[in-house]
């Protein structure tokens, strides 16, 4: 695969694409603090709102008396789940069929939004009013430990009225052949004859691993402010202004019957998402509250209220058959996964079975059986960068087989990864081979078995390796538009800005195709525009850039045609022609195919010294549009069974057996995103996922009180993210095989490098024992039998 279909997909020379240190188009707004995120907006006459949050892990409000709360000065409105306005409220897209009401009286985890919303003059009053509610709770048994929750005598925690509501597009579909039992739903997929393969196996290993829960941590707590206003340009009736909805402006508008043209949002800054694209209630409800009160209303999550999951807990039990050469012949994966609360995403549960590590193997016998346990631990809204979350189950198989056979895991991986076209394909994947080769050099890779190397300071040295596909899973279409206005190329977009420098990739591609510099492309942010460069992470950037490349070439054609037309038929002189050359244009009589755009000039291809600057070539305003998408990504066609762009990651640790302390000496990453569009941000994206990986394997952990089901550390003091002094060096190297099929053969690196066990494997390689993540010193010592 490659970008064979798009214009100039095979371009060989790049002036702009791939260039480092080109400032982002919004960087100055961010660095100076003038960029406003949803939580920043404050408008005159604004009210504040807060939703009641459950103090119980599983409870139902039987009755609420709001009398005392209403008596509190400054309370302006109180809405409960029984209110018609709430009952009539539609949900944003991503939910079909029978719907759970937008707000009801059931709280499935501690901190869940439930039952009542208070609107008041300030936040303190909101909080006081919530305290003054007289609530009669029915407290129901809860499940925090999913191993307990799967047992037959465990209390069924999901109330009957929520049992048959599909949570949305990304929730677990029921498995018709294996009906739900108690808290447990089942997801089972089988390929090949697994039992026979085990019977015939030369070797079998069995192991288990625990995937940790990992917190979402959108840096800017979700928030919105909304109000209604008279818009004389749109006729009678009010229009909606909402800030903080960002990417979902139109779908939130639709919740209130507002078409896009009557839904205004000026802010473009969305903050980091890390694939957690789910909207929060604080971003959806403010229009209703503003309508009811006649004033602008703001609602914001606190940091404590943002501890949703980016990854849910899972226990995995693996049995793997392999030959004496290390070729895997059967995989039997039994998982017990946290299904979370109603409406939780199926990524991390059944959604991982569609693709994952096993389908990159030549092994044809794969069984994945999963118990998905309803729990009261919390909610995962959509996805997370570690997704598919089971990837490191495969990484561990390769490591363990290498250990058993006394071989290098790189060698074992190379034997097992199938060829580009299918699991039966024995040809090498060029991208994989190139990554491995570069990785050996980058890391000065000298494999040793567990407890095989001590550092001069006495600590044990450990090393680990993993590979992954670089999938382009972005499948959106894009409505691109480019304008030539007064000789300047404009790229209008609604944004949003999510930290992935997507519009910059688009601007670079436009500059490349039009023979201009990056700074020549003016990006105009306007919420009324259709084009959004987002549709995933870096993979969305490569996909939108492909569509924008088409658009740029349409504009180019228009420019060349207009230039010739104006050269042949010069417009009559006008008073405002200052600076325009009076002599005939050298483009006169030419054909479009004889011309090109180079260095900001329309020139004759055969002799580029003949030409005119773009601004003089045509005075027309030209608008080019292109709606479409790149050819389907190989990932979406093959789901791991077809391979194009790949990456490898490495880790070296030092473990102190006396203290249990683990130091990551360095991470190494060799990634083939197909083609590097914007290297500076690509590097940062790699750093970010490696730090996420470090965090989830060494530092971050949810702590619950089992008895009450209350989360004990949903704050940034007790749930610690890595800081400047914690992070190890990340050595990175990019390869460009051009094997993807978005812009110029790019795929991106989304969902490919975040991992749950690279460090854990390196720790095992150092000290020869397994430690579940996060490998805190006490756990390391316990694993060593020292604590």
């Amino acid at each position: 695969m490659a970008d064979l279909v798009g214009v100039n997909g095979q371009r060989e020379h790049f002036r702009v694409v791939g260039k480092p240190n080109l400032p982002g188009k919004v960087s100055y707004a961010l660095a100076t603090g003038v960029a406003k995120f949803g939580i920043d907006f404050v408008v005159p006459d604004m009210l504040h709102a807060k939703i009641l949050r459950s103090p119980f892990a599983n409870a139902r409000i039987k009755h609420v008396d709001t009398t005392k709360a209403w008596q509190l000065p400054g309370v302006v409105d109180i809405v409960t789940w029984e209110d018609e306005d709430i009952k009539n409220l539609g949900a944003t897209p991503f939910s079909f069929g029978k719907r759970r009401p937008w707000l009801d009286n059931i709280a499935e985890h501690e901190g869940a939004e439930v039952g009542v919303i208070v609107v008041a003059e300030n936040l303190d009053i909101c909080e006081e009013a919530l305290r003054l509610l007289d609530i009669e709770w029915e407290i129901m048994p809860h499940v925090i430990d999913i191993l307990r929750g799967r047992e037959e005598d465990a209390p069924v925690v999901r109330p009957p009225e929520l049992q048959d509501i599909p949570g949305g597009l990304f929730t677990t579909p029921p498995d018709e052949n294996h009906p739900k039992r108690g808290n447990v739903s089942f997801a089972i997929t089988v390929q090949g004859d697994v039992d026979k393969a085990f019977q015939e196996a030369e070797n079998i290993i069995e192991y288990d691993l625990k995937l940790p829960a990992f917190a979402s941590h959108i840096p800017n707590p979700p928030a919105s402010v909304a109000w209604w206003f008279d818009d004389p340009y749109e006729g009678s009736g009010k229009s909606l202004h909402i800030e903080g909805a960002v990417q979902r402006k139109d779908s939130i508008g639709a919740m209130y019957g507002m078409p896009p043209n009557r839904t205004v949002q000026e802010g473009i800054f969305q903050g980091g998402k890390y694939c957690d694209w789910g909207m929060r209630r604080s971003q959806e409800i403010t229009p209703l509250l503003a309508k009811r009160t006649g004033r602008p209303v703001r609602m914001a999550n606190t940091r404590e209220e943002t501890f949703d999951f980016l990854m849910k807990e899972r226990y995995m039990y693996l049995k793997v058959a392999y030959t004496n050469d290390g070729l895997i012949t059967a995989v039997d994966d039994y998982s017990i996964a946290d299904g979370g609360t109603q409406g939780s995403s199926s990524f991390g549960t059944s959604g991982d079975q569609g693709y994952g590590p096993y389908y990159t193997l030549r092994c044809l016998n794969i069984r994945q059986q999963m118990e998905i346990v309803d729990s009261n631990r919390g909610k995962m809204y959509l996805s997370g960068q570690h997704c598919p979350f089971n990837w490191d189950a495969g990484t561990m198989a390769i490591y363990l087989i290498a250990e058993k056979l006394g071989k290098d895991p790189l060698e074992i991986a190379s034997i097992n990864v199938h060829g580009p076209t299918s699991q039966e394909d024995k040809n090498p994947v060029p991208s994989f081979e190139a990554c491995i080769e570069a990785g050996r050099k980058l890391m000065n890779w000298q494999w040793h078995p567990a407890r095989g190397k001590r550092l001069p300071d006495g600590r044990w040295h450990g090393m680990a390796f993993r590979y992954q596909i670089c999938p382009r899973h972005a499948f959106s279409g894009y409505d691109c538009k480019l304008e030539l206005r007064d000789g300047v190329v404009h790229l209008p977009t609604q944004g949003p800005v999510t930290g992935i420098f997507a519009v910059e990739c688009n601007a670079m591609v436009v500059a490349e195709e039009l023979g201009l510099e990056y700074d020549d492309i003016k990006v105009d942010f306007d919420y009324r525009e259709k084009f959004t460069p987002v549709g995933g992470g870096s993979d969305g950037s490569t996909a939108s850039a492909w569509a924008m490349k088409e658009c740029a070439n349409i504009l180019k054609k228009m420019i060349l045609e207009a230039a010739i037309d104006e050269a042949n038929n010069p417009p009559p002189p006008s008073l405002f022609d200052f600076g325009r050359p009076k002599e005939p244009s050298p483009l006169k009589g030419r054909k479009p195919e004889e011309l090109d755009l180079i260095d900001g000039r329309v020139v004759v291809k055969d002799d580029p010294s003949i030409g005119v600057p773009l601004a003089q070539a045509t005075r027309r305003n030209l608008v080019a549009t292109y709606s479409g998408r790149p050819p389907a990504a190989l990932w979406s066609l093959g789901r791991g069974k077809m391979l194009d762009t790949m990456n490898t990651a490495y880790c070296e640790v030092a473990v102190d057996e006396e203290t249990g302390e683990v130091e990551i000496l360095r991470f190494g990453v060799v990634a083939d995103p197909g083609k590097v569009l914007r290297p500076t941000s690509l590097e940062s994206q790699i750093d970010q996922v490696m730090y996420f990986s470090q965090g989830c394997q060494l530092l971050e952990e949810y702590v619950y009180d089992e008895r009450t089901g209350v989360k004990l550390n949903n704050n940034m003091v007790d749930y610690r993210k890595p800081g400047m002094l914690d992070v190890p060096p990340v050595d990175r190297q990019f390869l460009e095989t051009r094997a993807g099929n978005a812009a110029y053969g790019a795929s991106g690196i989304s969902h490919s490098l975040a991992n749950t066990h690279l460090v854990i494997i390196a720790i095992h390689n150092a000290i020869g024992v397994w430690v579940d993540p996060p490998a805190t010193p006490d756990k390391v010592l316990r694993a060593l039998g020292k604590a």
Partner: protein
Amino acid sequence: MIHEENAGKGSAVNAVPVAKSPFTHASTSAQAAAAIGAIPPVLKEFNCPLCNTLSYSLNELTKHYEECHPGSVVPRIVVLNINGKDCEVLIEPHWTLKRALQFRLGLTGAKHMCDRGVCGSCTVIIDGRPVLSCTTLTVECEGKAITTVEGIAANPKWKPLIDAYCRWDAMQCGYCTPGFVVSAKALLDRSPNPTEDEIKEALSGNICICGTYPRHAQAIMEAALKLETEG
């Protein structure tokens, strides 16, 4: 422009000052200066935080409290020196500086990430020292010189720092970035040629979830060089 949380009842609320593209140093610096310029030095309107009733003096508001909210703590005026400008701010005693900056003064460069003093996103400089505005009471700040990121952005002297941050992509989503810039400025004030280790130490209280950590030292060292040569 009215920044007060409850002020200006009935005013044209759709006049939201959002940053407008193109975002150059000149345009964003001007927007930061405009945000500072819009802070009224003297308060003329006093909205009751409890019921939004408008008074025209603190005395009038105090009387309103006696009549309508007896027993409640009456808001007070503090005079803050923000980015070199003295301004009266009506606050309640428990208000943090972060809250006053956002909800009274319209300065939103200091960001709310953890609200517990661990992430550094809300950093401002008070009397030359980086301080976390989410854990600092506004009443403690009277008589002290407060610099926010807007003050740094509006001051042409610090253009090299902002430029370097942009050139080196020392940001992804950018939410934590103003906090880093303020910490960096405080560092450069006391140590104009910091080493990489000094930079890491100085920024160790700033959390970036997007993982931009390796970028900051590059940016700050480049800025330091430029600041030195430009005098």
